[in-house]
């Protein structure tokens, strides 16, 4: 059994479990309160398998009022909690806590309002990202489209400020959330953003502060999203290059030409190889890199500039350009891109995904650095990423059954993140800090910065009940610069205790 479970049993003993469960059952009904360890076992991880904690109790409320009442009970009993959507997050943000309640929002998947006159949609947090897209199609689109959009929930998107492939032109979740009903950790309910009906509601931009707060400020129970008219035309191409360096140069030239593609995505040879086994797009197996570029907008503008785009790709040394001729072909291009993470499971037993961001102009040098690191560590690193945003997703492949390989892979991942920071970037562009990157927060932010984050936290959650131990390091880490990244599970557990 994993290290730390003994400790969790100890803590579970401190929970007023009987009273807690009785009160949760009274709110949500017995069938929606899980207490059997075998049921709970299935909630031990989100999309990041490396961490697992079995919660002592999970509750699946069916409506906003039930969420409010559940949070109130937790507040009464001073029990911490973690909210969870579809469990597809990649930073362990929805990792349960051993002495708290897991609030699972996957039953709350009603689309409450589709108001296209005002270009808004109101949903419950468990609604999937793709369900919003479907609800407004074909005349409107909801631009944030994380690769996991078929499964990830809007509540989770709000918590993580999810991005996706179309951020370069359209922005992130935070640019599309116009209203939130939030249950605060004390069980009170606030409506942020003028109930989603006033862009410039008076008062602090708490909407902006809440989106991306990784569940540490409250639970969103009703989310108003802005949707936009579907572009008249969409044209997509994939350009192949000998290596990622050439492809990176193409990216720079596209941007320098004043083009604002809806998406500029890059995959390297290894990523192409992995995805090809899932999506069967028939891309050349000898390509060193593929650049997926999508232009959208008015048909005339799209046509006008698409030729320019093709020329730029050729000019940057593309070995071949393929234009999607049909919607079906375009769908396959995107399937290649969007299934890349999980498809990596086909080429490697295990892998770490990183999410660092760098200034786009530093792409060639940072990619070289990653390649050099991979060679140095003797590990394969697949790269699939949002090139337009400079948001890298290196997949460090390893075999956990080979002694020492996981450790090496982790160390390599850490060095890649450091390279991103050295280039003036960020440790995470869209996956969130969660539990996974907590140790890096001290490298990216000074103690004063972290203290300022805690000021906000204090205003929302003075008791520290909402998703404790995630996203923002707690004071004891303050002032510490984390040393070389942990190398052993036991050490990892020790590190966790320091938080």
């Amino acid at each position, binding site marked *: 059994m994993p290290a730390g479970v003994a400790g969790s049993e100890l803590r579970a003993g401190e929970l007023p479990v009987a009273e807690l469960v009785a009160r949760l059952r009274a709110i949500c009904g017995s069938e929606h309160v899980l207490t059997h360890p075998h049921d709970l076992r299935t909630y031990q991880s989100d999309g990041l398998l490396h961490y697992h904690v079995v919660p002592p109790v999970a509750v699946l409320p069916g409506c906003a009022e039930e969420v409010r009442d559940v949070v109130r009970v937790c507040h009464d009993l001073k029990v911490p909690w973690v909210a969870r959507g579809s469990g597809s997050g990649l930073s362990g943000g929805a990792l349960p806590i051993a002495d708290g309640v897991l609030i699972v929002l996957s039953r709350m998947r009603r689309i409450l309002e589709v108001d*296209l*006159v*005002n*270009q808004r949609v109101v949903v419950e947090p468990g609604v999937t990202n793709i369900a919003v897209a479907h609800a407004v199609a074909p*005349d409107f689109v909801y631009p944030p489209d994380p690769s996991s959009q078929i499964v990830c929930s809007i509540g989770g998107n709000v918590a993580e*400020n999810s*991005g996706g492939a179309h951020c370069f032109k359209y*922005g992130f979740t935070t*640019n599309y959330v116009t209203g939130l009903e939030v249950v*605060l950790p004390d069980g009170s309910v*606030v409506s942020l953003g*003028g109930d989603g*009906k*006033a*862009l*410039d509601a*008076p*008062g*602090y*931009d*708490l909407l*902006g*502060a809440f989106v*991306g*707060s990784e569940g540490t400020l409250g639970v969103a129970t009703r989310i108003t999203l802005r949707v936009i008219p579907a572009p*008249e035309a969409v044209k997509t191409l994939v350009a192949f290059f000998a290596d990622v360096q050439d492809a990176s140069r193409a990216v*720079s030239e596209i941007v*320098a030409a*004043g083009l*604002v593609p809806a998406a500029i995505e890059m995959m390297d040879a290894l990523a192409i190889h992995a995805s090809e086994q899932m999506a069967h797009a028939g891309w050349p197996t000898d390509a060193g890199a593929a650049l997926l570029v999508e232009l959208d*907008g*008015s048909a*005339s*503008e799209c046509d*006008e500039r698409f030729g320019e785009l093709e020329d730029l790709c050729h000019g940057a040394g593309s070995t071949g350009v393929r234009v999607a001729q049909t919607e079906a072909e375009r769908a396959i291009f995107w399937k290649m891109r969007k299934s890349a993470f999980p498809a990596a499971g086909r080429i490697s037993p295990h892998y770490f995904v990183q999410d660092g961001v760098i*200034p*786009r*102009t530093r792409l060639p040098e940072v990619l070289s650095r990653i390649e050099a690191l991979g060679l140095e560590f003797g590990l394969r690193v697949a790269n699939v990423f949002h090139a337009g*945003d*400079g948001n890298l997703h290196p997949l460090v492949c390893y075999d956990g059954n080979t002694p020492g390989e996981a450790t090496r892979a982790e160390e390599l991942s850490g060095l890649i993140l450091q390279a991103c920071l050295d280039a*003036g*970037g*960020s440790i*995470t*562009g*869209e996956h*969130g*800090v969660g539990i996974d990157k907590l140790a890096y*927060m001290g490298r*990216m*932010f000074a103690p*004063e*910065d972290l*203290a*300022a*984050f805690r*000021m906000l936290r204090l*205003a*929302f959650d003075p008791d520290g009940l909402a998703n404790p131990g995630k996203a*923002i390091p707690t004071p004891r880490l303050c002032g510490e610069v984390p040393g070389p990244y942990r190398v052993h599970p036991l050490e990892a557990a020790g590190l966790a205790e320091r938080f």
Partner: protein
Amino acid sequence: MATPAKSGEGSASATAVPATAAEVAGMLAGGGRVRPVGGGTKLAWGVPGRAPDLELSTARLDRIVAHNDGDLTAVLEAGVTLARAQAAFAVHGQRLALDPPDGGGAATIGGILATGDSGPLRHRFGGPRDLILGVRVALPDGTVARAGSDVIKNVAGYDLAKLQCGALGTLGVICEATVRLHPLAEQTITVRARSSDPQRLCVAARALTRSSLELESLDLRWDGLDVGGCLLARAVGRTVARSVAGLTALLEAAGLETDEVEDDDSLWAEQRDRQRATPGGAVVRVSGLASDMERILAAAPSAVGRPGLGLFWVRLDADADALSVLRAALHPAACVLLDAPEELRAAVDVWGIGPGTVLDLLRRVKQSFDPAGICNAGRYVGGI
């Protein structure tokens, strides 16, 4: 460093002109009541409040720290004027897609962010909160904190940059900001479509909002039933002529009279100007749903705004009754009194936010960042 303050509303007893964020923070740590000042173009917004002990000018925080043209980002100190920044970006064919009224070039980045002010470009590019990537802010506890990052995508840490936008300097003093840039529009043509029938304007505005034409801006100007109003749609791009044809067809089908304006800068400058009050008058910023437009046109003597966003600036007589009539007519849309004589702002509820869980939370945020009430105390919502 402190000198006697200039005269003006709620005059401070002293003015300071710090040159670094650390100096700003040091002044906040002094414990006196501080009012940050940029270009001074929106100094009168908010509740008049008590005079501060210290007026803190950002005039020397005036460096364009970086313009990373290849990355379409820039780092600006708070005292840089928008006009100067735009001139620098334009050299590389870029811009900060933010065009609020700028008081003849005096408005600074810090002031625009702190007030959350915006102009016609908001239709396509969003407001200050959508363009800010990172912030360096001097906090009332005397520290300098950074949030966000210098790259266009980041989710590490809370988004305190957005929190500072529109906070009117009540949570600290913005010293530096990283912003996202966009390419300059290559060519624009504005289609102007007039009607005296508010219903026709509303229907046409909605048709344009729903269309997939990617307009640079979509604005409304309304001067009451006697004069009527017009929609201004600014098309952009290599194939702008084609867009204009589409626009014109749509607008004429909606029963509006159209003309094309190629040299359109002055048109848009006027739209921006009309977001501010005439001398002695008042301006209310109305924020509601796009479908509130009919009600707004019926209630407002004159207005400019962004129909797609439900955002309008209504010029009113500086009169408490006029404000309450407008608020009653437009409820529950948010009506914030911006420009107005001091007496009026002292006499009415400037922000229009009542007691409730939201105000409680806003107070807790203020309390957490500024427990001693150092920064712009009393000016903000609920007397924060």
